């Protein structure tokens, strides 16, 4: 039952993506690339890029995209619902606890403990994405020098701009997209 599987996968993503922003990314990759054969790593990388360029959280964007690919519009609705349902229950429960007890020391403690784990997972997912960008595959190939040197150049430039001048990430995405098209059109060696 594909809809049930979609729902369950995105419930897990919604339930365990703690820390916002990119925390959902490793979980989404795990569910839709590793556990279920719904997207290839290349398609997943595309989804993350598209999600960055459009409004809305990565998890919701991915739920919609994967849902459509797997089960059409009903699939998108089921996946999105699965993604939001756990948050709905937990947020309101936490709000209730918060207004009763004024303070969430243990919850904060759990979050503090989770933060390094979440960072580790983002780092790992980021590395996979980087390999995908450099080699067109998610694992390091036998000949690691078979790099896409233009991609390495774009990455280095983007990373430098972000670290040095804290450029808006949207400009980095747009810039690297446009430059990549130029590289394609112009006959570089």
């Amino acid at each position, binding site marked *: 039952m594909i809809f049930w599987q979609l729902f369950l996968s995105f419930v*897990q993503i*919604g*339930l365990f993506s*703690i820390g*916002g*922003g990119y925390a959902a990314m*490793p979980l989404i990759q*795990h569910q839709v690339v590793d556990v279920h054969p719904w997207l290839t790593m290349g398609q997943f990388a*595309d989804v*993350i*890029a*598209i*999600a*960055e*360029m*459009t*409004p*809305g*959280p*990565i*998890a919701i964007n991915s739920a*919609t*995209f994967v849902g*459509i*690919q797997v089960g059409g519009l009903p699939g998108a609705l089921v996946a999105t619902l699965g993604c*939001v349902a756990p*948050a*709905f229950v*937990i*947020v309101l429960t936490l*709000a209730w606890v*918060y207004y009763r007890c004024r303070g*969430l*020391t*243990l*919850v904060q*403690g759990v*979050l503090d*403990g989770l933060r*390094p*784990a979440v960072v*580790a*997972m983002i780092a*790992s997912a*980021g*590395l996979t*994405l*980087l390999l*995908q960008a450099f080699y067109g595959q998610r694992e390091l190939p036998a000949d690691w020098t078979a790099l896409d040197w233009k991609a390495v150049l*774009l990455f280095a430039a*983007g990373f430098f701009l972000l*670290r040095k001048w804290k450029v*808006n990430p949207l400009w*980095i*995405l*747009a810039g*690297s*997209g446009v430059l*990549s098209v130029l*590289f394609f059109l112009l006959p570089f060696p």
Partner: protein
Amino acid sequence: MTGRGMDPHKKPYGRLFWSVLTLSACTFGGGFVILPLMRKKFVQDLGWIDEQEMLDLTAIAQSSPGAIAVNAAILVGYRVAGLPGAALTALGAVLPPLVILSVISLFYQAFRANPLIAALLGGMVVGVAAVIADVTVTLIRGILEHRRLLPVLVLIAAFAAVRFFQVNLLLVILLCGCIGAADTLYRGRKGAGA
């Protein structure tokens, strides 16, 4: 909780839904961008929630699993108009990305075959990799700043577990959550005893 411009007997469902919908449709860059905009809208412009309470709601939104923007929307909806309000704002937050991504997804297969689009997307993936590398460096520095051994050990162990040993992510999250809880309880007891 009767803010200005708000009739206590008539809940402002329409304006609530519309406010969240427009914020969600126009905000690029995720939770940390939308939170200040929400504060401006609901605290300063509409006066439905006071400053301190909004800070509390923000903390809860960030402490809960799921997308921060959606969590914050649910909390604001609940505070202003109860459970129906929460359902309404959740819908308002989710609808724009749902519609936009549905349209893109329908054209994706056809677009992806075009070499220009493929080059564009390929370049954007490189851009995303740079953005995530930048975010990761910032996050790791944030952890190192605490000058405590435990978080660094957890970071290294979790990375190795996920990267090299393919340990299930949910297991890693549950385990590290328990470590965090134990650490908090232990330090709380030690602090109380001193």
